[in-house]
């Protein structure tokens, strides 16, 4: 009797031991952030978003502790590659969140395919990552560059009834993709883009560009990132154009991350985005309150992106009962995530791994002494392909400075 019992205990221990070890081993998350260089503000916001998420979950998902390993890429593609290799080969992370910039994500895309580590993009918006350069291990928790600007193209033509518009945007892929998406939808709805300006990303001064804007356009599309939206809107007002030619733009033009540094010059500017800190839903109110309490600032593009990447991780882990080691099952779960609520709103992934989600048309207003992106219109369940057929969409070249061609330039 005692002997049988002893054997039983021994046996059960043998069976339970691996399971026990598995349950105790933490889930290792590699978090690609930027702490040095010009993109550091975005990196900080990414980390803040993820920290809020971890704090709310007490550092545990599906019963397993989360171990987050932060890696500073300095926003340099070569360094991003090295850091990713470190995370994968030395830290043996189960999943990667990040990186911040599109060119960083493109730099590690092939490596990720090769080592087969699931990656959730928290901010990189390059169209082709979920279009023509598909990676089975990559999903995006945020929108593509043009997923945001296509809706505001329709809004400009149909709701605002603008006929002729000029565009000005940073002269790099993100600026090109956003502007082209806007132009395509605006022109398909009867509008005409009559002028396109491309100031270099690091241009010292917008004065000479602002002076070129055709005075007889109905409105101006602006596609800026980082500090450039702040600099442009300020100079736009100084040259007396604010209030004369309305401005509408992409998400980062008046992102909450720089909106707090802006003044009256930003009032009235329209933009499109998959998020707004001012969006009045219960889930977002909670999120915004948490971020404000912890970091004394409104969440924006990066904060919401990283937090949502966490939500995707959580939902997928629930499906596989925390067994992130089963990579194919985990990846499948990740691709089938459906979020019913969260700061961004309802989300599900299309078959390319990109979210279908609400797009908000936002207007900068002053409320309680601070500038906010008030939501004035919602396009529900918007795809990266807008209303176009995905196959036909993908048969075209990726949006660029030359595609679609601008046929109405005067």
């Amino acid at each position, binding site marked *: 009797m005692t002997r049988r019992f002893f054997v039983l205990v021994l046996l059960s221990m043998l069976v339970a031991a691996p399971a026990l070890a598995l349950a105790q081993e933490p889930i290792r998350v590699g978090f690609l952030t930027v*702490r*040095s*260089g*010009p*993109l*550091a*503000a*975005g*990196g*900080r916001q990414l980390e803040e978003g993820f920290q809020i998420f971890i704090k709310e979950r007490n550092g545990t998902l599906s019963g397993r502790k989360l171990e987050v390993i932060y890696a500073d890429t300095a926003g340099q593609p070569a360094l991003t590659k090295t850091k990713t290799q470190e995370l994968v080969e030395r830290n043996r992370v189960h999943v990667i969140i990040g990186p911040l910039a599109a060119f960083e994500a493109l730099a590690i895309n092939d490596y990720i395919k090769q080592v087969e580590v699931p990656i959730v993009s928290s901010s990189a918006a390059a169209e082709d990552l979920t279009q023509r350069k598909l990676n089975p291990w990559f999903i995006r928790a945020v929108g593509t560059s043009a997923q945001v600007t296509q809706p505001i193209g329709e809004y400009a033509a149909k709701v605002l009834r603008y006929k002729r518009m000029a565009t000005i945007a940073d*002269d790099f892929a993100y600026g090109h993709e956003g502007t082209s998406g806007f132009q395509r939808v605006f022109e398909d709805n009867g509008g005409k883009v009559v002028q396109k*300006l*491309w*100031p*270099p990303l*690091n*241009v*010292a*001064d917008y*004065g*000479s*560009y602002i*002076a*070129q804007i055709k005075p007889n356009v109905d409105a101006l599309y602006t596609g800026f990132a*980082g*500090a450039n939206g*702040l*600099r442009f809107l*300020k*100079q736009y007002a*100084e*040259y*007396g154009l604010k209030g004369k030619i309305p401005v509408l733009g992409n998400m980062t033009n008046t992102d909450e*991350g*720089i909106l*707090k*540094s*802006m*003044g009256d010059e930003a009032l009235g500017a329209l933009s499109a985005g998959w998020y707004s800190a001012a969006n009045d839903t219960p889930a977002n109110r909670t999120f915004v309150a948490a971020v404000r309490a912890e970091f004394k600032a409104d969440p924006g593009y990066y904060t919401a992106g990283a937090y949502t990447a966490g939500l995707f991780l959580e939902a997928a882990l629930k499906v596989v009962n925390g067994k992130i080691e089963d990579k194919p099952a985990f990846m499948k779960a990740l691709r089938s995530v459906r979020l019913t609520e969260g700061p961004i709103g309802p989300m599900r992934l299309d078959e390319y791994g990109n979210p279908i989600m609400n797009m908000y048309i936002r207007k900068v207003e002053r409320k309680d002494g601070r500038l906010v992106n008030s939501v004035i219109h919602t396009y529900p369940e918007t795809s990266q392909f807008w209303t176009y057929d995905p196959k036909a969409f993908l048969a075209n070249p990726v949006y660029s400075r030359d595609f679609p061609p601008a046929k109405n330039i005067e």
Partner: protein
Amino acid sequence: MAFWVIQSLNGLALGGLLFLLSSGFSLIFGLMRVANLTHGAYFMLGAYVGLSALGAGLDFATAVLAGGLAVALFGGLVERLILRRLAARPPAQRALAQVLVTLGLAFIIADGCIWIWGGDPMPLPVPAALGGAVRAFGVVFPFYRLVVVAIALLVALALWLGLERTRVGAMIRAGVDDMEMAAGMGLPVSRLFTTVFCLGAALAGMGGVLGGPILSVYPGLDTDMLPLALVVVILGGIGSLLGAFAGSFIIGFVYTFGQTLLPDLAYVILFLPMVLVLVLRPRGLFGTRAA
């Protein structure tokens, strides 16, 4: 007509801004014989200090002085504690060491600024009296930009008087022309180095605060500005005040009109004059020595 007026004003304003940036760069370049790659970082550091000074309730003029003073102090320390130690090496080695050290310092300052001031881009407010716009000849132009041009002209005049009409100025000119000879004549070369380095850094720091209302203050401002200073100084001639002055306004105009009239060449247009000068006249328009 309005187009030419406003773009000429833009060119003028950019020229003024560039002179505030590059006059100090040219001075240090002339004396040290190497490009001080920390100059862009000094410009940014000055802007940040100015921002803090304004935040502390000081007025704009004081903020400009604070920016200049803080960066001058910093530059002086760098020269005394670091660059000086490299001076003993043979010339070829020294140049490389100085370039690398100044580049490394630039990175350190840049990350130091993120550490202290955070990475968020911030506007540097225009003082109310200098804000607003001028309306004339059918164009609207921000008044502050004209102020920048006026300040650039004043700084140019002050520097010219200082260099041409004072004893220290004569010593600096002697040092720029021929360092060994100047030392042989018994000039206090050591003090001269520190003086010029402080002066150059002060100009960069003040330029940063003065440029802030146009450029805003953000991480990356340093690396955006440094190439501009290089272009101006190589075009105008190293160590030449007149060169920095002419170079600034030439680049201001070429850049403004170039990227307006030939938008596809927006990147080339900035460096084209520099390339031409390097090929045809390596010592620059007003320089005495090849770059």
